[in-house]
Structure formats: C-alpha cells, structure tokens
C-alpha cells in the first residue's frame, strides 16, 4: 500500500514541479515580451546576438539542411521510381513540403540544438558564477539585459535562416534528382504549387520557433544551480526543451492550418 503511495507521490511531485516550471516559463515569456515593448534590449548587444545566432549558424544550417535535402529527394525519387516512374510532380511537391513544413521545422530543430545550447550555456555559466545576482544588484533585470536581445535576434535570424535553409534543401534536392535519377532541372524547379498560404505558414512557424528557442533556453540557463553540473544540466534541458517545443509547435500550427483550410494544404 505504501509502495503505491510512494509511486503516486513521485508522479504527483513530478507533475507539480512540471506545472510550476511551465508557469515560470510562461512568466519568462511574458517578461520577455514586456521587455521588448519597454525597449529594454541594448542596441550593441542586439548586433552581437544577431551575429552570434545568425553568422555562426550559417555553415551549420547549410551543411545539415543540404544533406537532409539530398536524402529526402533521393528517398522520394526512389519510391516514385518504384511506383509510378513519373517525376513530373516531384519538384513542385517537394517545394511545397519544404516551404510549409520541412524548411522551417528542420531549421528550427537544428537551431534548437545549436542556439539553444549556446544560450543556455552562456546564461547558465553566468548564473552559477553569480553574475546574474551581480546584475540584479545593479538594478538590472536579467530578462531585459540577457534574454530580450537574444529574443529579437532569434526572431529575425530564424526567419532568414529558414529561407536560406529551404533554398539549400531545394537546390541540393534538385542536384540529387538530376544526378541520380536524371530529372531535368527545369522540370524539378517548379514553383507552380506554391500558394500564399504556404509562405504564411512558413513565416508563422519560423517566427514561432524563433520565439520559443531563446525563451526556453534562457529560462533553463537562469535556473542553473550548483556549479559545472548545473551548467551541463541547463544546457541539456535547453536542447531538449527547445527541440520539443519546435515539434509541438509544428504539430499545433500544422493541425490548425489543416482545420482552417478545410484539409487543403
């Protein structure tokens, strides 16, 4: 009987902790928005973050999305060859998927790993070396000083990298289709199926991911406790939290879009 009770306590405790964490995360998010409205970010820091998030992730995004683009095209063509042998739609369908889903989501996942870990590591180290407390002693709000610049930079950069990543995926896919399956580039690079709703979907997703990643990672960084293990733990939590947020947001946004368009994506 007490075994069951201990189990229930453990699960109950975990649920309470998780709920408290979600509430705090929401507070950080609201605090960040309030900080943006207040104009709390520092101009110089914004540029530094744009560089840190954008420039430094450039090669990473190009490489990872390029390779995955090649793989996806290869697999798709392989299946088509087996079933219909008709490659006329491959390019346009592929582009539709890239724009409305895979472009933003894969970029988002990659950035969740790279940028999420980076932000949590930086802010987490500051937390365990008491620099956050020192900031507060000078009357500075850590959310304004640290998270808001990263938030704004991430919004901008995630959108730009999504477009770039999508382009790289498409281009790499086209090359693969041509070299492995002889698909004519002019047939592949076909924008016919792209409609405004796809572009809107891409922007909505990119902005959502761009907002979620710095808030979740900054939150994990601010909660770091202890010394080195605390930083390691914060970074781990940030990567997981950001990645999972991307997937959940993707699901929610896609499902909503499905309802709004009556099943016509």
């Amino acid at each position, binding site marked *: 009987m007490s075994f069951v009770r201990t189990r229930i306590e453990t699960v109950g405790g975990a649920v309470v902790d998780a709920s408290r964490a979600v509430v705090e995360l929401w507070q950080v998010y609201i605090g960040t928005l309030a900080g943006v409205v207040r104009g709390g970010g520092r101009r110089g820091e914004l540029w530094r973050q744009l560089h840190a998030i954008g420039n430094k992730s450039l090669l990473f995004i190009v490489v990872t999305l390029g*390779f995955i683009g090649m793989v996806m095209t290869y697999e798709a063509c392989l299946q088509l060859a087996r079933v219909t042998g008709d490659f006329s739609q491959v390019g346009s369908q592929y582009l539709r998927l890239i724009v409305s889903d895979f472009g933003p989501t894969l970029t988002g996942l990659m950035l969740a790993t790279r940028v999420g870990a980076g932000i949590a590591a930086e802010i987490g180290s500051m937390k365990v070396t008491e620099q956050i407390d020192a900031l507060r002693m000078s009357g500075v709000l850590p959310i304004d000083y640290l998270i808001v610049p990263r938030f704004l930079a991430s919004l901008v950069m995630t959108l730009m990298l999504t477009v770039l990543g999508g382009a790289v995926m498409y281009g790499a896919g086209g090359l693969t289709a041509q070299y492995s399956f002889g698909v004519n580039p002019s047939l592949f690079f076909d924008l016919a199926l792209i409609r405004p709703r796809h572009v809107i979907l891409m922007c909505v997703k990119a902005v959502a991911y761009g907002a979620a990643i710095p808030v979740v990672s900054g939150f994990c960084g601010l909660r770091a406790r202890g010394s080195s293990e605390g930083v390691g733990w914060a970074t781990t939590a940030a990567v997981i939290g950001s990645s999972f947020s991307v997937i959940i947001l993707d699901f929610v946004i896609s*499902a909503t879009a499905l309802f709004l368009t009556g099943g016509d*994506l």
Partner: protein
Amino acid sequence: MSAAIRALGAGAIRIAEEVGGIVVLTGQVLRALVPPRIDWRELVKNLHKMGNRSVPIVVLTAFFAGGLMTLQSGPFVKKLGATSLAGWAAGYAVLREIGPILIALMFSGRVGANNTAELATMTVTEQLDGLRALAIDPVRFLVVPRVIAMMIMLVALTVIGDLVALLGASVVGRALLEIDWSTMYFSFADNLKPYDFLHGIYKSVAFGGAIAMSSCYFGVTVRGGAVGVGKAVNAAVVAAAVSIMLLDFFITYLSG
C-alpha cells in the same frame, strides 16, 4: 578580406582538430574492446540511467512526429482517394528517415548532452586525473561502457520510437482525417517491408556511435570551469547533429 580568410582557416583547422581527436578516441575505444574486458557494473548502470531518462521524451517526440507525417501526407492522399496508401506514405518516411533521425537528435540532446556534462564535470574536478593516478584507464573504465550503452540504447529507443510513431500516425489519421484504424494497419502491413525497418535500425547504430563518440570526446577534452562545461556540451550536440545528417546521407546512398 584577409581577416575573413584567416577566420575561415582557423575554423577549418579547429574542425580538423576535433575530427582528428574523435577518430583517435574511437581508436582507443576499439582497442579497449579487444580483448573485451568491460566493467559490467558501469555498463549496466549507464544502460539503466540512459534508458530511464530518455524513454519519456523519445516516446512523446515519436508520437507527434508520426502524427505530423500523417498531417503532411494525409490530405494529399485523401484527395487522391488513395487512403490505403496513407499508412505507406507516413510509415515509409517514419521508418527510414524521420524516426531514426528525430529519435537520434532527441537522444543526442537528452543523453549525449548529459553525458558530456557529466564527463566534463569529472574532468574539470580532476577526477579523471585521479583515476589515472590509481592506474585505471579512464577510457576503458568510463568511456567504453558509455559508448556501448549509448549505442544499445539508441537502437532500442529507435525500435520503440518507430512503433510509437506509427501509432501516432494512426491516431492522427483517425482523429483528424477520419482514416480507419484498419485502413492504416493494412496500409502499413502491405506496403512496409522489414527491410525498411532494418534500414532505419542500421542508421541508428551509426547515429548511436557518432553521438557517443562526440559526446565522450568533448566531455573529456573540456577546459576551463563551468563555462568550459557549457561550451563542451554545446560543441557535442552540434557535432552530433552534423554527424547524424552526414551519416544519414552516406548510408542512404550506399544502401540504395
């Protein structure tokens, strides 16, 4: 201009250094396996730790990923009236690509990063030096069990995750697109071959190795205190992500 080239060169050298270092560590791990004198207690402890930690997040992720695949392919398939293919469309992508890659990425974030943080903290607090002073080889004692545990765990998680993803695909198919359970099930059974499943498993073995080696390497080569640990974890997950994409590409091409 020259500053940009210098930065590019420095970056290239750093990447070469890291790749070289990981290769060297891999060599050490392989040598420690012959003859296989593994610390079983460490191995079991790590299996338990890594498995316990990652099952919830992998299951959740896989469920939603499977659902996403149905959301993407479902409407298209329905419009063509080919609902019997719904399972194939979602399932194929899941088993061969989305499943192994997404699960590997989540694993890298949950277990790989954590592992790097642990090893890095041990290095920073000089525990590795302490082991060496006791004539215990840290690679054999710490790294090898973790590498083996991570590879085994990722394969197991991919199997579980694949199944959960197919379940997620079915649930979303039923709930949002009104595709019957049985339609989905037969669609899977008719169109997905065991080879598709195995293809994904081969990949997860490779991914597991990449994540494990990257994670351990950056853990034991950490420098500086708390800041260094953060940087090590960062580097480890980035390297793992790139390796996963690269390996996925090569395996897909090589196996056709």
